[in-house]
């Protein structure tokens, strides 16, 4: 496929990720046991510039395109799924800050581009307007990936006016010190992501740290208004947020395919005469099918990313049809990787499930990541399918298109 030229900075980051891959791979088992990335892992990623990917340029960030964000998360996830997921989500958080008013961006990145922001969109809270502007917010949010390392949190919150009437959904920025932290992440996969819970008890959220979902769904962001703003941030809201989840899947798929291929010339097939898996034609067919699923996933992911990025560059907002197709396509990326990883585990055989095998960690990590609410295949199909069938530019299942 045609590779779009990477800006030198991103190319440099990708080169450094390759250099630290052995370190990340080496620390993955310990990070899983401790249920968060340890300091050497985070420090290596930080030193490689990984977490500057989504930060606006005027704060020293790389203001990466959607394609580049996918590339970075993918490269890290080739080393470890948990580290790749944290990379994707913290870069998503940093990028989304670029949609907030400049005052909020200054608060987060004013001291430098190495501030980490977690992101959790589900509106499991309530915020009520207060006199003089802003909102008071209470709530509890699970699944804050990378929360261990973040000093700010982006959190979903339904807004209410001072009479208690619902105004709009929003995502708000809250400093970590305003939030209580609960260690709740006990899950079968992605253990090292430390996707724990934040609790807010009646905290004040000033108006400049509020991003309303209604306008955002039309491509209207308070932080992307005119001269001096990076075009990179003129992306479509839901397509962009969803695409930021894809890189980790592609990277985990790459890693599993690489590991299974690498073992094939020396691994035998139990209870058969095959001394080498690579001699078995059924094995070759399984490998081909899995690789094609991953190829298709890659094509879909980058097609979606380029469509988002091209529109951003041209200053146009993707129309409903394109956004609906994006939801279908992006969910398909995740489904494809899931099927490929499962098939590759079967081709490799039972040894891949030994706790000492890195394969079983990739398998659990990818399977858990695949059930993120934003990439569930049914919702993608419902959104795309209803538009295909009716042409209607709304959907009773979800407004998040």
């Amino acid at each position, binding site marked *: 496929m045609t590779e779009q030229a990477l800006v030198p900075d991103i190319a440099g980051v990708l080169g450094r990720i390759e250099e630290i891959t052995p370190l990340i791979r080496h620390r993955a088992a310990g990070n899983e046991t401790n249920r968060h990335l340890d300091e050497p892992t985070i420090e290596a990623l930080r030193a490689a510039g990984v977490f500057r990917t989504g930060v606006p340029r005027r704060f020293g960030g790389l203001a990466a395109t959607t394609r580049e964000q996918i590339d970075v998360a993918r490269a890290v996830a080739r080393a470890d799924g948990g580290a790749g997921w944290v990379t994707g989500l913290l870069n998503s958080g940093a990028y989304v800050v670029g949609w907030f008013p400049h005052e909020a961006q200054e608060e987060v990145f004013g001291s430098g581009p190495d501030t980490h922001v977690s992101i959790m969109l589900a509106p499991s809270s309530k915020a009520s307007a207060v006199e003089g502007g802003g909102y008071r917010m209470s709530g509890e949010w699970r699944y804050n990936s990378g929360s261990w390392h973040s000093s700010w949190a982006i959190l979903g919150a339904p807004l209410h006016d001072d009479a208690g009437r619902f105004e709009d959904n929003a995502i708000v920025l809250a400093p970590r010190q305003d939030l209580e932290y609960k260690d709740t992440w006990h899950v079968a996969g992605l253990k090292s992501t430390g996707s724990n819970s934040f609790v807010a008890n009646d905290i004040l959220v000033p108006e400049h740290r509020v991003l309303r979902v209604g306008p955002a769904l039309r491509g209207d962001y308070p932080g992307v208004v005119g001269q001096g703003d990076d075009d990179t941030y003129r992306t479509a809201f839901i397509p962009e947020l969803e695409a930021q989840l894809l890189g980790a899947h592609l990277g985990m798929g790459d890693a599993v395919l690489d590991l299974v291929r690498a073992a094939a010339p020396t691994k035998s097939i139990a209870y058969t005469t095959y001394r080498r898996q690579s001699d078995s034609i059924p094995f070759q067919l399984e490998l081909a099918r899995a690789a094609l699923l991953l190829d298709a996933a890659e094509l879909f992911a980058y097609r979606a990313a380029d469509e988002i990025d091209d529109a951003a560059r041209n200053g146009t907002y993707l129309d409903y049809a394109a956004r609906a197709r994006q939801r279908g396509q992006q969910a398909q990326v995740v489904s494809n990787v899931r099927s490929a990883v499962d098939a590759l585990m079967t081709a490799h055989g039972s040894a891949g499930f030994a706790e000492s095998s890195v394969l079983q960690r990739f398998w659990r990590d990818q399977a*858990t990541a695949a059930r993120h609410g934003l990439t569930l295949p049914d919702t993608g199909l419902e959104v795309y399918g209803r538009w295909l069938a009716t042409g209607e530019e709304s959907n009773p299942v979800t407004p998040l298109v």
Partner: protein
Amino acid sequence: MVDSNLPPDIPSLLKSIDELRPLLERNAAQSETDRRVVQESIDALEAIGAFRVTQPAKYGGYQGNSRAQIDVGAAVGRADGGTAWVVALTNIANWLTSLYPERAQDDVWGDDPDAKVSVVLATNGKTTRVEGGYRVSGEWGYNSASWHSSWAILGAELVDEDGNFVDTAQLLIPRSELEFKDTWYVAGMRSSGSNTLYAKDVFVPDHRVMPGQPALLGSYPGTDDDTPSVYRAGWIPVLNIILVGPQLGIGRAVLDRVIAKADKGIAYTNFAHQSDSVAFQLDIAKAALLLDAADAFALRATDEIDRPAELGAYPDYLTRARNRAYVGWIVEHVSRAIEMLLTAHGSGSFAEVNPLQRLWRDQAVAARHAFVLPALGYELYGKALLGREDGDTVTPLV
């Protein structure tokens, strides 16, 4: 369900297993943590005879056929995967024990009719021929139910007095003569205790040696024309098909649990209840049909094993090759159903407190048992359908 294919008493055993389900489910998490099914579950299953499905009636066993083994494995699997694996593997090892001469069976069950046996077919044992038997040394991984068994059946290569290879064989050895190492650290089926056994120059008398070549053709040292038909069934077909019992049960357990929780909402949508989503309804239907298809194929497969045994016939190569293909096909269907159900249920499936993620890991690991891998079964069946005779170049185990 009353079914004339079942031996007497198996339906009541299945009912007793259903009644134990709450207890087995309650102990599942602890069993996984301990990497050993907790004794309370083992004792309860032993009390209802769940480990004696295949034991000859003369020792008080159910003398059950392959269908009975699958139904029992599935019934336990509906509660917990690891426990089901221990039950299924013990019952198949007991079936194998019943193929040895009566003297060997008496060695195992004469004093203790509840004695359990484990089995690993891999022919890792190296032997020397001695007066009255063989001396064997070797190491065998993956002895499921190793915590609960007092005998082991282990694969070996037999040699003559000059050390020349004669045949493969399965050796029946008391656990007291074997060394044990705790090696089972795996992502799923943790409670199956599939640990490693070692033999160091252990003497095995001839009556506890079952040669491989005759067994592949349906000739077992302990059977004759008067032997109950269940002990004249095809060797590899029975060994292979019984592995799907836990699979079928785990699939049902996942379906049960996802349906039971279908009133929860769907993240990032307006659905307050999953059950209101037509897409979710389709997922449930497809998954249930996949499991129904797996059940139907398992029935057909056991029928093709148990019926010839009753008629005193040994199934031909094509039938045996097809049986190996059935197994991979069944496992593929269960895997797809579970995958689909976990996606439909959502990320909550993966919380450590949720039994769904354990059922998922257990089934996934069981699905990669070398004997059930679909590719091999399909290759054997395809070669046989094409009338080719080169299946043995891939594996003689058909």
